[in-house]
């Protein structure tokens, strides 16, 4: 049978396997190639077959009527009675005498009949259906004596790996095969390379913290030392006053800042420094007029959740000023808190990224150059600077980068040179400038990972599937 080609009938389930199923070895295309063809043919229905044997219903009705006729009621009891009678009537083979004695009676109307239906069906049975006229075929089909059958055939040829010996194909290599060397003679089932593999079981790092790791890396590459920012609770003194932010500033309002009920106040300050801070606010000094208002210690004592990591930068710069000055570069990435109105991109807490450089004679050009290097490492090359206002930096500049996706300049950070009113009371030498910049960690992460709602990223409503599926964080690619 498996000669040059063979025909398999009714084999429609042959290729039933879906993409993931392994194909049965006999049918693998390397062994046998198969081609589907289809053809039509006419066949008799069981009723048609009966007519070929016994004659058509109308012929059988005709034959059963004796010369003296048959009462219609009896005729109807015959197996072919109902169908045969009406056909025989329309063929005018029989007649009906409704007025006969004992009820309506059927008589032969002609001497003999030619059973053409039977003859035509006989032709079909002999495979000569094509010789019938289409009108006749349709008539017989209508009478449910004929039916059209579609036959699917498969033309099968030897495949490239055809063999007359039936070998069971192996699914995979086993240690035994390796030991015995039997793998050399075995056939292996084909793999379906369209299918996906099985994901490894593993834990995953959080996308925002993956980005944090990269920012940390960038700062370390640039020689910046990490600040200890593990103090969410801060006094207003370090968060605001030390930064020369006046006590009536709107940022110090209940609407913007979380104040603490317990512990409500900070108790311990470097008092000499605090006095200098008080003086610069209320009277000025160091070449500044100050804000000239009544600076109150109670206000500075108020504990808050820090609103920026710059509070820690202030502590670090104060500490730096207490020793013989050496240049310093600091960075931090940590949580800050704002009592703000929440929306799709704002939460009450977020991560602030901050960089600070302190050295003699730093210029605005140095700040811009440092920012350029920093943002280049983030894969951002086109930068533009806009004048801005910050209470504790002067000059201040907002950093904009051109976003190719949005086709516009978007703000990517804020920067400036710390005011002398902040640095000199700390005790830093006069010629020392401190440049600084900051940005949020959430915003670049949302852009990087295409997240629109910050709650999907940060907090307990995180989409864990997103965490599972997240790619590596490569900021420069």
């Amino acid at each position: 049978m498996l000669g040059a080609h063979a025909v398999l009938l009714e084999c429609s389930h042959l290729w039933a396997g879906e993409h993931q199923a392994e194909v049965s070895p006999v049918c693998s295309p390397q062994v046998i190639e198969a081609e589907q063809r289809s053809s039509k043919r006419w066949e008799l229905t069981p009723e048609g077959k009966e007519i070929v044997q016994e004659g058509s219903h109308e012929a059988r009705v005709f034959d059963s009527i004796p010369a003296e006729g048959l009462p219609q009621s009896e005729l109807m009891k015959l197996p072919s009675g109902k169908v045969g009678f009406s056909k025989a009537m329309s063929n005018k083979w029989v007649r009906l005498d409704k007025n006969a004695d004992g009820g309506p009676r059927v008589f032969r109307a002609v001497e003999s009949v030619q059973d053409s239906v039977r003859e035509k069906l006989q032709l079909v049975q002999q495979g000569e259906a094509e010789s019938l006229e289409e009108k006749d075929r349709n008539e017989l089909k209508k009478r449910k004596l004929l039916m059209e059958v579609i036959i699917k055939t498969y033309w099968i040829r030897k495949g490239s790996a055809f063999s007359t010996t039936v070998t069971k194909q192996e699914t995979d290599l086993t240690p035994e095969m390796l030991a015995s060397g039997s793998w050399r003679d075995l056939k292996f089932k084909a793999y379906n390379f369209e299918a996906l593999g099985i994901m490894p079981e593993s834990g995953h790092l959080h996308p925002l913290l993956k980005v944090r790791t990269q920012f940390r890396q960038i700062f370390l590459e640039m020689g910046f030392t990490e600040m200890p920012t593990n103090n969410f609770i801060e006094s207003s003194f370090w968060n605001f006053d030390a930064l020369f932010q006046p006590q009536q500033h709107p940022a110090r309002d209940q609407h913007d800042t979380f104040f603490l009920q317990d512990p409500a106040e900070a108790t311990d300050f470097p008092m000499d420094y605090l006095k200098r801070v008080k003086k610069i606010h209320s009277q000025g000094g160091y070449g500044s007029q100050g804000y000239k208002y009544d600076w109150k210690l109670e206000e500075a004592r108020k504990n808050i959740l820090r609103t920026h990591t710059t509070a820690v930068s202030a502590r670090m710069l104060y500490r730096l000023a207490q020793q013989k000055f050496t240049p310093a570069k600091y960075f931090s990435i940590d949580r800050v808190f704002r009592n703000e109105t929440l929306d799709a991109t704002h939460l009450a807490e977020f991560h602030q990224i901050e960089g600070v450089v302190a050295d003699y004679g730093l210029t605005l050009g140095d700040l811009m150059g440092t920012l350029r290097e920093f943002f280049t490492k983030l894969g951002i090359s086109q930068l533009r600077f806009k004048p801005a206002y910050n209470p504790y930096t002067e000059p201040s500049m907002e950093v904009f980068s051109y976003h190719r996706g949005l086709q516009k300049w978007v703000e990517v950070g804020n920067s400036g040179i710390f005011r002398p009113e902040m640095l000199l009371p700390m005790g830093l030498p006069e010629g020392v400038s401190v440049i600084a910049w900051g940005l949020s960690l959430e915003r670049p992460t949302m852009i990087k990972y295409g997240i629109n709602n910050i709650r999907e990223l940060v907090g307990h409503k995180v989409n864990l599937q997103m965490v599972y599926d997240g790619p590596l964080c490569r900021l420069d690619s």
Partner: protein
Amino acid sequence: ELCFQFGLELDEITSEKDIISKEQGGGKAEGASDIILYKIDVPANRYDLLCLEGLVRGLQVFKERIKAPRYKRIMPANGGVQRLIITEETAQVRPHAVAAVLRNITFSKDRYDSFIDLQEKLHQNICRKRALVAIGTHDLDTISGPFTYTARPPSEIRFKPLNQSKEYTASEIMDLYRTDSQLKHYLHIIENKPLYPVIYDSNGVVLSMPPIINGNHTKITLNTRNVFVECTATDITKAKIVLDILVTMFSEYCEKQFTHKCNFLCNMLEKVKPDLINKKIGISEKPSSLAKLLTRMCLKSHVTGSGNNIEIEIPPTRADIIHACDIIEDAAIAYGYNNIQMTIPKTYTIANQFPLNKLTELLRQDLAAAGFTEALTFALCSQEDIADKLGVDISSTKAVHIANPKTAEFQVARTSLLPGLLKTIAANRKMPLPLKLFEISDIVIKDSTKDVGARNQRNLCAIYYNKNPGFEVIHGLLDRVMQLLAVPPSKASGYLIRAAEDSAFFPGRCAEIFAKGQSIGKLGVFHPDVITKFELTMPCSALEINIEPFL
């Protein structure tokens, strides 16, 4: 583009029609103006740019289209200077007041609107919602000086407030405005004081009862020619700034432009060395070019001496300039930030990681490698999260309490990472089991030895959520963490766990963890009450330890 260079932010280009249809729906906008409005954000310290008059003046000078105006104080022709007498009683409520007169002003509808609008903006900004400063403006021709600023018991103050038809006492006025959408926000400033501030003219006419309302008698109209401006304040510096801004902005419409009469308005002279400007910015411009740059910023400047000094006249509009660095910034803005050559500082430093963060980074990597997924939960939460839901009383926690939370979600700083992880699981119940999560982050606890009375503590927390409690999984993770920290399981110098009781955990299924000679945390199977309270349905076990002893 011009705005960008000048440090302004063009927020939105819109029209009155657009704004109304956005806020109230399309139907209401019909008939509103189609005139294009430019919404511009100005820097928070530039009060002189808050009105169109100042903004246009500033930009014109910047583009060198006009010269910076020089504001002058003048004496009235008849020599009669108006006086405002401040009585001692005001010290108890609102101790300061300053005043000025804008003479021979010509208002139009637009100018008048802008005048009112600027007062409102100043009230909201620098005046801190009238708490620091309140402005009153009056038609000088309806009253006669000298004026008296005093404070009286509310029952003794009686006048017809602005736009009212009859007289009220001060107490009645307070009641009257209790429901006023605007004025009700200012009542608290004086409400509980025994004396209310009030300004009278020489005939006893009430000008105003600051910071609440003016009298109707002195109401200014489009026909007003002489405006008496008074600012009462708790902060004298701010009162002067506000008065200066108001009069300098609107003296443009006086017969002699930019002239008005007041008690302290003056141009200050500052000297800055050109060298310093160049050095701070990182440019090398000639002194004369620097003087020109500054002049474009409304800071009239010229080189003095042998060219080693620039003398700068600071107009009363620029109260933001309090130090040479403010002048240097203006020079940089005029030079153009984006024209400055970028340089890399030569500062040489060796980088160091913060040891606690370094340890955290290393542990995070290996916890993920151990099959646990990292969560990032909020540091703030409700009292319920850290107390009731874990079966403890809030008073027994060392939690830090927030005084002004807007919602319960921000009542306290977390004292444990467990609630955050449990909530993370609750929000991800549809995910396939098991759920294995961890977090290494800070909790906050009260600590009286710290200057602020509280400190952070770096905790490691992990949780296992499945059809079985999986205590052995969590226990195994503890063993792995200790292995990573090179701490052996041993009573003497390593770590051990010992049966313990904790309301969060199922009795008999909780142990305390000891290492480095101290208790570092607990592990266990959660109490069914805890599981239910966090809206979970499966057994669950967890571990939380302090990692700071391992530094």
